């Protein structure tokens, strides 16, 4: 714009600056920042944390994109945290020769991911579907942001994911969602407010690699107090019937089974083979599951209605006696043992389907 004399804004705007030794302030600021962050990092390391890859929505999207980039014929694992923590990809690869793509999401029903895969012509492989009763049969989605990010992830978000995985995650132990300052403050022992349920959030349970191979965090295995805390967190749900009434719960279970039937039909129509897997749980967690999600009215019905073969841990002696420090997930060493037992059974189930075809 050519500004003519007397017109608006003839003088360019110049932002006023503080009359101070700003350079000194910046240096002091950087020193304070480095000291404070260093102390914070030291605190978390001494508490038992180590730098690791964050199991973030961006990491999930990276694995999901492998299907679009020429690996759509591979075995894909979906489910919730039990499939994520219990299936060890290196062991699976060692036993079966193929490293699967890990797309299980903590606390989240696999059905939305299966529906996404059913819409994706690039996916022609095999699907191992984890069934955690209280999640699968209720359609619970704790972390929907993971599968929601993938179709709309921007180039900027992809770069941020790469930068984070390269520059921050491998080096910083504090850089974990569970140690975010506001989360730490939230879980302090604040006085309870009458009438407001103050649920404890699920704590850090696992450690992930860049391809989402995930295993139990050593602190859960070795720190009895921490394991007991994790158990208390699960137990918050054990007191009452899910959804407030058995009638609503039964309707929900039936709805989710119908939803599974539909998505299985769509996947099978495209030649995708499937197998359902019920991973181990024990103690109070198992009692809760058998009380509200008995096998006969959930798992058995699912297999019957979908016609998909299933591997239930109760049916296999090699899947007994495993260690579950917080009742729901296997200790890292036991996860390897479980994977070694599971992989041949899955292969057998797939082979039987091929014969059936």
């Amino acid at each position, binding site marked *: 714009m050519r*500004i003519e004399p007397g017109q608006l804004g003839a003088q360019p705007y110049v932002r006023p600056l*503080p009359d101070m030794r700003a350079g000194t302030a910046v240096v002091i600021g950087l020193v304070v920042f480095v000291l404070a962050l260093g102390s914070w990092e030291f605190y978390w390391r001494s508490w038992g944390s180590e730098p690791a890859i964050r199991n973030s929505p961006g990491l999930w999207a990276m694995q999901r994109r492998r299907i679009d980039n020429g690996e759509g014929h591979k075995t894909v694992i979906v489910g919730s945290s039990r499939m994520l923590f219990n299936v060890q990809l290196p062991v699976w690869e060692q036993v079966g020769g193929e490293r699967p793509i890990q797309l299980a999401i903590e606390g989240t029903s696999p059905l939305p991911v299966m529906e996404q895969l059913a819409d994706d012509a690039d996916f022609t492989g095999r699907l191992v579907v984890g069934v955690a009763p209280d999640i699968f049969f209720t359609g619970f989605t704790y972390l929907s942001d993971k599968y929601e990010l993938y179709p709309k992830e921007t180039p900027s*978000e992809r770069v941020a994911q790469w930068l984070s995985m390269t520059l921050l995650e491998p080096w910083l132990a504090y850089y974990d969602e569970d140690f975010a300052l506001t989360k730490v403050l939230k879980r302090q022992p604040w006085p309870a407010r009458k009438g407001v349920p103050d649920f404890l959030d699920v704590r850090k349970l696992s450690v992930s690699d860049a391809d989402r191979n995930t295993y139990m965090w050593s602190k859960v295995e070795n720190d009895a107090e921490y394991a007991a805390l994790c158990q208390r967190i699960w137990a918050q749900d054990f007191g009452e019937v899910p959804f407030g009434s058995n009638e609503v719960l039964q309707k929900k279970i039936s709805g989710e089974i119908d939803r599974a039937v539909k998505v299985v039909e769509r996947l099978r129509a495209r030649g995708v083979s499937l197998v359902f897997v019920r991973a181990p749980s024990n103690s109070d967690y198992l009692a809760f599951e058998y009380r509200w999600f008995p096998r006969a009215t959930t798992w058995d019905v699912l297999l019957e209605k979908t016609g998909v073969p299933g591997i239930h841990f109760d049916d296999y002696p090699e899947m007994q006696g495993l260690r579950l420090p917080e009742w729901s997930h296997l200790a890292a060493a036991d996860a390897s043992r479980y994977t070694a037992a599971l992989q041949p059974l899955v292969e057998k189930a797939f082979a039987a389907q091929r014969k059936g075809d």
Partner: protein
Amino acid sequence: MTFNSLTFIAFFAIVALLHRLPFSWHTKKVNLLVASYVFYAAWNPPFILLLWASTFIDWKVAHWIDRTEDQARRKLVMLLSLVFNLGMLGYFKYGGFLLESFQALAATFGIDYTPPAWNIVLPIGISFYTFVTMSYTLDVYLRRARPGKSFLDFALFVTYFPHLVAGPILRPTDLLPQFERESRPTRQQLRWGLMLMTLGLFNKIVIADGLLAPVVDKVYGAKDALPMLDAWLGTLAFSGQIFCDFAGYTTTAIGASLVLGISLIDNFRYPYASIGFSDFWRRWHISLSTWLRDYLYVPLGGNRKGPGRTYVNLLLTMLLGGLWHGAAWTYVVWGGLHGLFLVSERLMKQAWGEFALWKSWPGRLMLGVLTYALVNITWVFFRAHDFPNAWRVLGAMLGLGEDGKPVLTTWLIVSAVVPLTAMLAIHAYMRERDLHVEVARQPVALVGFVLGAMLFLIAATQGGSSAFIYFQF
């Protein structure tokens, strides 16, 4: 890309470094233009075509208008530009809203009309850059300025990344003169710019996203009736969230631009210390309120055509201002309420004049508290996702209906009350003051310590690259 992302940190480091290398001013401007396109394309590359179209058309239109003295032709060309800009905005932003509203209207007459699905993605920042390019054409049409000679300068004015997606909504005169002559960023600009960026990101990541958003989400996500305390805290928290989010964005933008040696105008002046709604709109989203004043309220006649017409103009301006924010009737109600409060303020001033009480500090405090309370009433419609949600929260705030079930834990109450108290105290103290002056008055060690503490809190909160609220507008 968002300012609170790792991508932006890397991007900005490269841009700032390039800008300090000994290139010619022309090369530096080309660098900034390319960087701005990269900044925009990093969200959704195809939409850069819209930005190019908007830039090119308004550049040409302004020259056509300037070349002709025929008033009818000038007007026609100006209208063509408006049709293009508002048409683009209408198609992407209001298409679905218009169809839904038409469907609802048809249903009231018993007509069952199902419109086709409207799955159009809203190009980020379209409302902002459309207003920026329109101001250029309108300034030329209104003979407030003449078109420039450099297309590069104009393209950079439209696209300059610090203001591109969420303002401030700049006028040509705010930026073009700065592009005309070379400016080398000084060390003091660099340092103050970095401090402002830290302050802006602290507001966004720690206060808006970390502390206040969970409170707001809890209250506005509640499905049952709420108690009065929870409803008020949720809405007050939203007042803090939206301020820290939007002012945080603007402060970061101003700081980033200052590092490059370019000055951007202020967009906020401690709005929650406002005394009255006229004062509020001189302090909140200043670049939008002045845009609406200069290009809508004044052309409509402003206050030159008698009191009745003034009130209509005010209401119309605020209703459209509300609709500018989002394609939903809740935003229209938000704008309408602000219009009503502005009209009421004028009527009361006319009827009662100036009382001495209002000039005393207790009177000003009372008016300030009343203004803030009424602003919060309007925020309910801004935040609620639909009218039932708005009525539920508003009803609880006004003590209407049954007493509901509390939803806020002690921690959530603390995480709302502490930053809100600090924010209101700062707004009250800074009402007549300037940040750069107040900072300079403090001991350097204290400024450094606060800066370091903010940096640490940003890093420790971690954040999640969540988009700024105003990106959706």
